[in-house]
């Protein structure tokens, strides 16, 4: 995606420079076509994050219903696959609890009490790209407009070469900002959740899953995973108590 955010401004700058576009209609039409390309990529990229999360969430819900015979297997980014393996391990532990204790009741303490909106995750993924494209289009419009662009051309030397460089540089720096923002807002919470899930599915049953409420699917998944972890914790305590008798 970052690659596309650098390449598209280059293409925009080359097209606008090559055709010497002073016409405001041209300045609007070319970015609009490229905006459609960007939308397709945004939808595809959102899908690579949201779809596996939705699938995993559906499987966790099945486990909470007591359906422990399903195989949890979700493919995608490394963190999502790691999360899926941890959920499979947690499910297996619950199955052991069922066989050894006859326990199949997995309470939904937290997840049932909290209503979760799915909209914010889509919103948080797509918003930075929309803002990026709108600002790039505005910048190109201003730099290539016949009134403002011509005024600058008269005062700034080599403006014809500076203009595309400005657009490409803008694309480059905004792609860095958007990538960092995406990593911090979406990537890091997924990574953190994968780490906690791995610990919870192996030995550490005391660390709670905590995710930002604004992350929709991710937040709901963290609540449900916390409930699964607590069900395992109760089974462990039960077995330890039986062992000590």
């Amino acid at each position: 995606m970052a690659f596309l955010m650098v390449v598209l401004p280059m293409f925009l700058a080359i097209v606008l420079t090559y055709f010497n576009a002073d016409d405001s209609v041209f300045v609007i039409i070319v970015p609009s076509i490229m905006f459609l390309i960007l939308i397709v990529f945004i939808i595809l990229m959102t899908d690579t994050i949201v779809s596996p999360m939705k699938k995993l969430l559906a499987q966790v819900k099945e486990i909470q219903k007591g359906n422990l015979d399903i195989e949890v297997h979700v493919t995608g980014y490394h963190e999502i696959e790691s999360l899926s393996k941890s959920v499979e391990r947690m499910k297996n532990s619950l199955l052991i609890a069922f066989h050894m204790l006859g326990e199949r009741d997995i309470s939904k303490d937290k997840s049932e009490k909290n209503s979760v909106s799915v909209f914010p995750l889509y919103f948080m993924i797509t918003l930075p790209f929309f803002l990026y494209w709108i600002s790039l289009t505005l910048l190109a419009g201003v730099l290539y407009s016949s009134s403002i662009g011509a005024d600058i051309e008269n005062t700034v030397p080599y403006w014809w070469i500076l203009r595309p460089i400005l657009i490409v540089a803008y694309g480059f720096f905004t792609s860095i900002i958007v990538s960092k923002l995406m990593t911090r807002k979406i990537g890091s919470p997924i990574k953190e959740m994968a780490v906690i899930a791995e610990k919870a599915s192996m030995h550490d049953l005391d660390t709670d899953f905590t995710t930002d409420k604004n992350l929709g699917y991710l937040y709901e998944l963290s609540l449900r995973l916390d409930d699964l972890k607590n069900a395992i914790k109760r089974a462990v305590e039960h077995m330890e108590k039986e062992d000590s008798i």
Partner: protein
Amino acid sequence: MNEIDILEKELVAVAGPLAKFVIKKQMKDMGFDRDDFPPEKISELVDLSVKNAVFDRSKQRSIARDIKRKIKANGNL
């Protein structure tokens, strides 16, 4: 790290935190404690523990084989 530790570590990595209770129960059913478990019975313990901790039958054989290989690599089998 002795053979039971390896078995516990590997089985928990596959079946989750409750796997260690399965191993403990199998040892008890076989009539041994963790401290006096005979090395010649390890292979049997691995098979029984995997059978009772991993419910996907298609995976049981390969998981048991991997665990035995790791125990053997550690010089305990």
